[in-house]
């Protein structure tokens, strides 16, 4: 017994080493698949408020660019209003269209504006931190948009902050379709170039052309249909010859991202309970 204790004391540092390394690996396997723990992610109160302070300062450097973007968006919206106004004036809204609109769930989304207070693009698994949390109505699994297109999906929320899995993260796949032909595939980032992602699961016999627009499919409660994602930049048959290997140029510029909108689907809970009952 005495020898055993002496042995342990003599080699204490080896035991501490093994203990710390095993602890680290447990943490890695537990939290890195899907960082839902708010306590240990950048949504926690300490690092969250740190990031907010820093981004308050760095935001000033991007103000000019933000102004340009906002005024551009204003102009687009005004143009849209004018278009609808003229449509109304001509009373061209047919009965069929309004019926379709009321059936599609797209009208049941509200947008929560938020500021990106931390964002990375230089890793394999990229995340963003937002300055809004559950108190502002944000919940896990909500879609996140920029004015250009899809940006990511919320994966963790605290009271005042939330963490978003960026589209630049191979952990998420977004169901997408080609606007012209309506072929459905899933979009996933391959960890290489931050301006392009891969569109998978499009069979090789389907016709695909460079320049086709890729939009969300609306086959989940996360994104409604027809949110722009990117355009096909390059395509070729993959190694097995049964699928297309498609590169999609993303509309969202992840390097300059600073303001986003979070999609709140009105009947999300109801939709989820429905889905759960059939499983």
């Amino acid at each position, binding site marked *: 017994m005495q020898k055993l204790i002496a042995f342990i004391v003599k080699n204490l540092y080896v035991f501490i*080493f093994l203990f710390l390394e095993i602890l*680290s690996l447990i943490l890695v396997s537990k*939290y890195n698949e899907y960082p839902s723990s708010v306590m240990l992610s*950048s949504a*926690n109160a300490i690092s969250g408020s740190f990031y907010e302070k820093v981004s308050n300062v760095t935001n000033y450097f991007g103000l000019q660019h933000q102004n340009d973007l906002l005024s551009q968006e204003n102009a687009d919206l005004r143009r849209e209003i004018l278009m609808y106004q003229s449509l109304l004036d001509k009373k061209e809204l047919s009965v069929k269209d309004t019926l379709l609109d009321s059936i599609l769930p797209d009208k049941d989304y509200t947008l929560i504006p938020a500021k990106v207070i931390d964002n*990375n693009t230089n890793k394999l698994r990229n995340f963003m931190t937002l300055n809004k949390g559950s108190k502002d109505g944000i919940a896990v699994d909500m879609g996140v948009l920029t004015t250009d297109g899809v940006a990511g999906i919320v994966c963790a929320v605290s009271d005042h902050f939330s963490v978003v899995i960026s589209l630049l993260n191979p952990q998420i796949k977004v169901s997408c379709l080609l606007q012209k032909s309506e072929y459905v595939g899933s979009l996933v980032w391959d960890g290489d170039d931050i301006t392009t992602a891969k569109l998978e699961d499009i069979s090789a016999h389907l016709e695909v052309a460079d320049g086709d627009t890729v939009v969300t499919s609306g086959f989940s409660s996360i994104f409604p249909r027809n949110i722009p994602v990117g355009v096909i930049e390059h395509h070729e048959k993959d190694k097995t010859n049964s699928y297309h290997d498609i590169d999609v140029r993303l509309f969202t510029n992840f390097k300059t991202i600073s303001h986003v909108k979070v999609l709140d689907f009105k009947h999300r809970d109801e939709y989820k309970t429905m889905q759960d009952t059939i499983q």
Partner: protein
Amino acid sequence: MQVLKYIFSFILLVLIQVFVLNNIQFSGYVNPYLYILFIITLPMSVKVEWSMLLAFLLGLSVDIFSNTIGMHAFACVLIAFLRPIIIKFFCSADTLKNLGEVNVRSIGTSSFVKYVVAMTLVHHIALFIIDTLSFGSFWFLFFRILYSSIFTILLILGIEMFKKSR
């Protein structure tokens, strides 16, 4: 007084790592990890048990800010554990006796450069293997380790040379 200095450099290195270096994009996935300078320069008189605990705290602090819980902690504890073994390769027994803070002055330029290169490579290899575990080819991993190591080593040596010349 010494302790205060180390607490200050611990906090400063974490802040620089998280708010400056993690946001700089040299090219795609290249990211230098300067914060390991804390473990590298820690005096050899600090017992390895304590340096491993400090390394664990240091790694975990960086992890919490970059959503990589456990990865940096693992790599940091590893280099803290291997530090007494690595430094023996490059320094004579005479130098190692009563060695305080490890820097250019205390162990000499050529020993220090070799020591920094070895520590950085061990850290980066461990870190990137864990990070890349589930996907990516061998070459993808290889170039991530190579490029990031080069930047880290240059930063550390630059800072240490500057400190020496003052």
